[in-house]
């Protein structure tokens, strides 16, 4: 039987590429100096969704919330096999913490239509919180399984998944609809398919078409663009107003540089070090 699967994916700055240049003087990160990428674990989430569709039929909808350039992530999702994509973009959503983000995403998921499985990455590499998945599940009023690695079985009304935790591996069975958060131990994501790239490189949001002076795309080349009104969100629960947590201070990490004792790389030097460590009871 076919399933409606919704994947939540986020475009994130590639935090691996952070260098001194990417830090502003006030200690905040200059996002513009970093390449924007598909959040790594969200690619695994998309792959898991696509593999369910491959096995059972159905459709994969990919949603993202972010500024207009996040449409790029949705084109990538189309290249890899998503059937339908939508961008939630609205200035009033800026400065949302995980509680507000999960609220907005819950409105977007409901707006997208009926669903059987919602798939998130375990965590996004910018915030590293891993909170949005469980909070979204709670807002949708459905159960969650975090740290999922594989779907073992899926049949009418129920799903069996494997997850791995601090305590080992568990196989859990639960009812649909359900939300899964997926780790990078899951199946390796597929690459964009050449044929799909050719077809969908023209996919765009109405906003993108407008700023490129082109006609709005039609049919399955449409990247839907929703704002907070489209999805019926209560503005009190979005953005700054809906975010109980506030960032008080940001500090860039600098090396402690307290100065260390230089030990010569020869037997005498090293014997001296061992002697010191024994003397101060660190070893021995």
């Amino acid at each position, binding site marked *: 039987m076919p399933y409606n699967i919704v994947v939540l994916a986020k475009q994130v700055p590639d935090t691996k590429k952070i260098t001194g240049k990417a830090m502003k003087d006030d200690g905040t990160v200059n996002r513009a100096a970093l390449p924007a990428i598909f959040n790594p674990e969200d690619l695994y989430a998309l792959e898991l969704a696509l593999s369910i569709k491959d096995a059972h039929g159905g459709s994969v909808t990919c949603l993202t919330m972010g500024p207009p350039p996040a449409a790029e992530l949705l084109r990538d999702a189309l290249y890899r096999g998503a059937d339908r994509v939508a961008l939630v973009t609205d200035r009033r959503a800026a400065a949302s913490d995980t509680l507000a983000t999960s609220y907005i995403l819950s409105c977007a998921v409901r707006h997208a239509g009926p669903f059987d499985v919602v798939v998130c990455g375990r965590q996004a590499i910018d915030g590293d919180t*891993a909170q949005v*998945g469980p909070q979204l599940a709670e807002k949708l009023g459905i159960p969650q399984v975090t740290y999922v690695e594989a779907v073992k079985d899926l049949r009418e009304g129920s799903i069996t998944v494997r997850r791995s935790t601090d305590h080992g591996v568990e196989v859990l069975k639960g009812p649909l609809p359900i939300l899964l958060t997926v780790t990078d131990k899951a199946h390796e994501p597929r690459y964009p398919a050449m044929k799909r790239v050719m077809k969908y490189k023209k996919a765009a949001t109405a906003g993108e078409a407008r700023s490129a002076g082109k006609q709005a795309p039609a049919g399955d080349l449409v990247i839907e663009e929703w704002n907070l009104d489209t999805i019926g969100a209560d503005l009190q629960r979005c953005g700054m107003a809906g975010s109980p*947590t506030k*960032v008080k201070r*940001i*500090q860039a990490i600098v090396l402690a*540089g307290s100065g260390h004792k230089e030990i010569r790389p020869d037997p005498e030097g090293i014997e001296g070090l*061992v002697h010191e460590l024994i003397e101060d009871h660190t070893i021995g």
Partner: protein
Amino acid sequence: MDKNVVNRKGEVWVFIEAVGGRIADVSLELVTRGRELADRLRVPLAGMLLGSDVEGLAEGLFSIGVDRAYVAQHELLARYETHPYTKVAVDLIRRHNPQIVIYGASSIGRDLAPRIASTLKAGLTADCTDLQIGSHTDPVTKEHYKHLLFQIRPAFGGNIIATIVNPEGWPQMATVREGVMAMPEARDGRAGEVVRFTPELAPADVILSLVDEIPAESKVNLKAARVIVAGGAGVGSKDNFKLIYDLAGVLGGEVGASRAAVDKGLIDKAHQVGQTGTTVRPALYIAIGISGQVQHRAGMAEAAKIVAVNKDPDAAIFGVAHYGIVGDLNDVVPMMISAIRKRV
């Protein structure tokens, strides 16, 4: 945002994770910091203890400084499952209005805490490495808040440290990384109060069923190790990691690794130290062939003594080391082994 109850007399709570009849180390560590926070605020420190047979653990909590244990026992809480645990924890929090609730950033804490936060519409900060009490003035409204919980955590791949507050969306909640706070010391003669809570649970509250379970193989115990000898990508090969094992062997220590060493397949992920691995604070940490990127340092900079071996005199690891040896590890490590054999 709903303005939750701002209960300035509210207690400080620690979610006590009890798996297999044992309290998780991370919960014990939280008791240490929880005690300090509660003393600053002059309120009691309480533990939230859920399970099927956990009341017996309360005594141990009192001996390490907990004043009160909220004990919710029910056969449906025998093993951790998101939904009944959320339900009971939310009931307890609503009933008693603590001002702070902290959880370990374990696979259980990170599954449970966001679900609770969403239900309560409360703020939650993930993976903190430090918690403090301080005051805060809102930059926009200029409103001044006294005695808030400062939730301090690395973000952006460990490149920045952020201090987060939640002035109004109470209770103030955070998950805290394992290994960043010290273990508490037990003292005889400390007593506390058990507050029993009868959970209202029906079988339908347990939504997921366990089909199969494979417990993790004997985990590498980095956290308990007094001495850790860690190898990085500079070690070069799996065979050469034997040097690291040999040095750890003569010191009676555990073997750690950088992520690059793990990614290259030189050693198993269980050995990884750092932001996405284990946070450690041993008496001695010897970093060998590790460049010392911020994500690695995030997991070991708190070690009491750090020795670094690297052939690059400019390697970042020297910035956190107490002793630096600039040289080729293939020469230096055998010298260290023989020097220790001679002396110890």
